[in-house]
């Protein structure tokens, strides 16, 4: 049941972790060295850690709000489309058309509609997440095998039992995989939104501001934090996913 992502945690051994940490540190130092030597404006950051921690909290709060709204809305819509064929046929064309709009193309539109404030940022993150979840939920519903559906009809299962033995085990893998992709999309969206949508607290804004005032060490440190948090949240979700899937696919 492993979905072989290159170097995914499914084959992480302690040696791999060591490697990961070592190579991250080396890479960080190299990048920081190069950028510092290029800009040569490095002033030792005062309160750097505190600044980054505060920004991280802001970003996480925004990300979670967007994930919550986006996952809820996207799953509901995708489930409805998967379950009701007429909805599928009506809504699929516009949704696929909208998907052709590159994600960040929404930022100027949202900016025109609602300004660049906090609600716009969360809306944008939610939109990025919902994009993914609609498709995943749709896929999940359609991955319920018609053959097994017939078996549960033949056995005359009541709705609750049917939910337990047929629906939930069938849709869980696709839904969880969708949530993981949505999480990655959410990270892109939240960092991008913080960079593009005016000054606001958050990691993206911090990094961007540091670049403009010539503080490369903050740029590098902030980017590393984004990368590490992204990797950690993905790995966490993945191990949760595997624990859940293990229940169904021992």
């Amino acid at each position, binding site marked *: 049941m492993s979905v*072989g*992502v*290159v*170097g*995914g*945690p499914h*084959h992480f051994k302690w040696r*791999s*972790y060591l*490697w*990961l940490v070592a*190579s*991250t540190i080396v*890479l960080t130092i190299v*990048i920081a060295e*190069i*950028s510092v030597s*290029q*800009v040569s404006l490095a002033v030792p950051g005062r309160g750097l850690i505190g600044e980054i921690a505060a920004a991280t909290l802001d970003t996480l709060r925004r990300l979670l709000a967007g994930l919550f709204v986006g996952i809820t809305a996207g799953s509901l819509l995708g489930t409805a489309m998967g379950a009701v064929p*007429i909805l599928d*046929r*009506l*809504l699929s*064309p*516009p949704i696929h*058309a909208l998907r*052709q*709009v*590159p*994600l*960040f*193309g929404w*930022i*100027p*539109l949202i*900016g*025109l*509609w609602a300004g660049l404030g906090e609600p716009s940022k969360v809306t944008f993150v939610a939109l990025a997440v919902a994009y993914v979840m609609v498709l995943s939920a749709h896929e999940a519903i359609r991955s319920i095998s018609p053959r097994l559906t017939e078996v549960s009809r033949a056995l005359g299962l009541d709705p609750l039992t049917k939910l337990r033995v047929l629906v939930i085990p069938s849709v869980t893998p696709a839904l969880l995989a969708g949530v993981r992709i949505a999480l*990655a999309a959410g*990270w*892109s969206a939240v*960092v*991008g939104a913080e*960079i*593009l949508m005016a000054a606001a607290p958050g990691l*993206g804004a911090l*990094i*961007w501001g*540091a*670049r403009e005032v010539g503080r*490369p060490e903050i*740029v*590098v440190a*902030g*980017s590393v934090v*984004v*990368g*590490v948090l*992204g*990797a950690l949240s993905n790995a966490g979700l993945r191990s949760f996913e595997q624990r859940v899937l293990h229940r169904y696919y021992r």
Partner: protein
Amino acid sequence: MTTKSQPLDAVARLGQVATWLASPVLLLVLWWWLTERELVPIQILVPPHEVFETARAMLADGELEEAALASLFRVLAGFASGAACGVAFGTLVAVSPRLDRYAGPLFYAFAQMPAVAWAPIAILLLGIGEEFKVAVIGLAVFVPVTIGTQEAIRGIPQRYLEVAAALALPAGLRFRRVLLPATLPRIVGGLRIGLSKGWMVLVFAELFCANVGLGHLMDVGRTQFQMDLVLTAVLVTGGLGFAMDRMLLRFERFGSGRAAA
């Protein structure tokens, strides 16, 4: 004992087309109606014909073409370099478990970093010109292409390889008739994800630093409150992305030998 029932079939097909078109047409009519009756302020939604007019004017004076070509060039350059590296690296980690063990975790951490988060670092290293945009697009393409290629090669069903061995196929035939068709769908899957990521990052980069390009047009439209301009740029971006995606699909069908055979 089968009976053709063509009229029924045609009706069914027509019904399908109708439901397919129903919602876009409805949306367009709704859009037109809302703006015509001025039910929403013009700053929020401009009438469709105004977008059309803007697009025509910009096409006439070459502005749109210039922007589209600039964006297209960046995407193509980034996509070509990212895809080439991705296919090469993906193949390497697929055939060498050892390399996968050592480079895998690093790649994994690298892949977790949202492509847009590379932008500030890339600017520090490469400056704010073309190189940085191409590089960030390339990075965005590289990750999914690597994953797609590795999965494609790892996923070649053992029984196909066994059949190829049993038939003692020469290398060329083995590649053309077994390896390529077996791996191409997933590789192209990775390429398509990469392409859409590439467009996404392009728009992102152009929104904050470019003097020309579709994303730049969107940004101008936003700061000058010209929604028609924003929508024109968005539509062209979507259209170009869609066309390139279709070409990749074509390529897959061609390469798998379905079109040729």
